[in-house]
């Protein structure tokens, strides 16, 4: 690691005052599971590190009786699973997929959203938009078996690594942000962006803002699920994941649906046409499979990842069936 300065503020106001106006100079430390690895490998080389673990209000979970929830950014994944119980299956399904137990005890909700891409070119130091010596794109010509199959027209070909983001998007959650001008909220589906340069980030956060937590609107009557397709059961990120939230009417027909995919695009991917297709239908295996096909209709696999298209279709299908029960 290179030399850096360190501070451990105890309020969010102190924390944001310590952050800089551009990315790269200052990094925020919470659970540490990503930052420590990035610093050891010189992928990020901050001059300053701000430990926000001492900001007590960011560790709280509030769950009013109307089925809504406010989850602080510093809540660990294990605490999230223990506290949410059965009310938010899309989130708990996704959280249980985060492995190992040790990582779930350290890793935080905010850190899951803000972890940097797992793209092996990025992790090997070739940048977010990896290029070779002559400026040639490395991912499109290289080993792209785990890369994006949707939203990959631009230079960003990595997949968003967050486990919780698709579930939060399906449940219409908001990301609560704090900066020098005070608090603001962004819908979870608007929080992530595909970066256009190596110095951009994968989210709309400003360099001097922190994520305070997540606010989930009332979910009473909402059936939800997350289904992940994995190469291994433990210690890896999914190859494809889908989160679904459904509201059914008295005749068990779909009144409203939201579907979001993970690990298929540089951002979590909202499958609006597939959700629209479900509306008014009774869920069965054929309907769920058709929704999966619609969700992947625009997929443009790279040279080595066409297999992910089928995995993602199946993830959508199984998440819908699981949510409908």
């Amino acid at each position, binding site marked *: 690691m290179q030399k*850096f300065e*360190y501070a*451990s*503020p105890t309020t969010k106001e*102190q924390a944001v005052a*310590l952050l800089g106006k551009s990315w790269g100079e200052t990094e925020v430390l919470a659970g540490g*599971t990503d930052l420590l690895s990035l610093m050891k490998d010189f992928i990020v080389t901050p001059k300053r590190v701000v430990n926000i673990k001492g900001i007590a209000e960011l560790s709280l979970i509030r769950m009013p009786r109307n089925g809504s929830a406010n989850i602080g950014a510093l809540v660990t994944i294990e605490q999230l699973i223990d506290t949410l119980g059965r009310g938010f299956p899309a989130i708990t399904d996704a959280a249980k997929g985060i492995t190992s*137990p040790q990582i779930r*005890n350290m890793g935080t909700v905010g850190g899951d959203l803000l972890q940097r891409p797992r793209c092996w070119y990025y992790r090997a130091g070739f940048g977010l938009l990896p290029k070779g010596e002559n400026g040639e794109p490395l991912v499109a010509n290289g080993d792209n078996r785990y890369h994006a199959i949707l939203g990959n027209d631009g230079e960003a070909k990595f997949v968003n690594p967050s486990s919780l983001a698709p579930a939060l998007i399906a449940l219409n959650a908001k990301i609560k942000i704090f900066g020098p001008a005070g608090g603001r909220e962004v819908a979870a589906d608007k929080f992530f962006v595909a970066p256009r340069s190596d110095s951009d980030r994968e989210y709309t956060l400003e360099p001097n803002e922190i994520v305070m937590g997540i606010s989930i609107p009332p979910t009473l009557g909402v059936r939800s699920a997350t289904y992940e397709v994995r190469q291994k059961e433990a*210690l890896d990120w999914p190859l494809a994941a889908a989160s679904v939230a459904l509201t059914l009417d008295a005749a068990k027909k779909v009144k409203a649906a939201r579907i979001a995919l993970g690990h298929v695009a540089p951002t979590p991917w909202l499958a609006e046409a597939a959700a629209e297709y479900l509306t008014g239908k009774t869920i069965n295996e054929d309907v769920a499979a058709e929704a999966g096909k619609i969700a992947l209709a625009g997929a443009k696999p790279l040279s080595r990842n066409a297999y992910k298209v089928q995995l993602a279709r199946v993830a959508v299908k199984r998440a819908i069936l699981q949510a409908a029960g």
Partner: protein
Amino acid sequence: MCIVSVISVISVAKNVCPNLVWSDLEAKKSMKLNFRVNGVEREIDAPPMKRLLDALREDLRLTGTKEGCGEGECGACSVIVDGEALNSCLAPVCQMQNANIITVEGLARDGKLDPLQQAFLECGAAQCGICTPGMLIAARALLDANRRPSRDEIKEAIAGNLCRCTGYVKIIDAIEQAASAA
């Protein structure tokens, strides 16, 4: 590869003004940390991002905790902090102020092995041994929270611990035996 270099630390005083800026702060090379390891109060002076793993092995000479992958995948470095198993290779020591830490050295009491250690011995649950301290710690954290875990719960609890000799069956047997003996 971790090269922990000398870093300048800024300690934030308890009663600082809300609009704290870096230049107001006093820079230091390292920070004083107090925590309890295996029931003993310890104090070390360390750079804030030093890994708990290195603080245990180098500063406190507790070399029972092993480094495997150094990336949070293998679990060889597992320790229990405030009741929860975590990867000490990913834990910056600055977050350990006042923590209660149990390492593999803290499992045996008064010269008597922990029931888990005894069961590992009896079941032949160690081959090369590099994963054993982490396995014991993950199992201890499990049994502290759940006295009679199912085989599936045992597998889940050690899902973050790799055994490169693939001796999982005997490890699971040993944890089951220790749980039933308790």
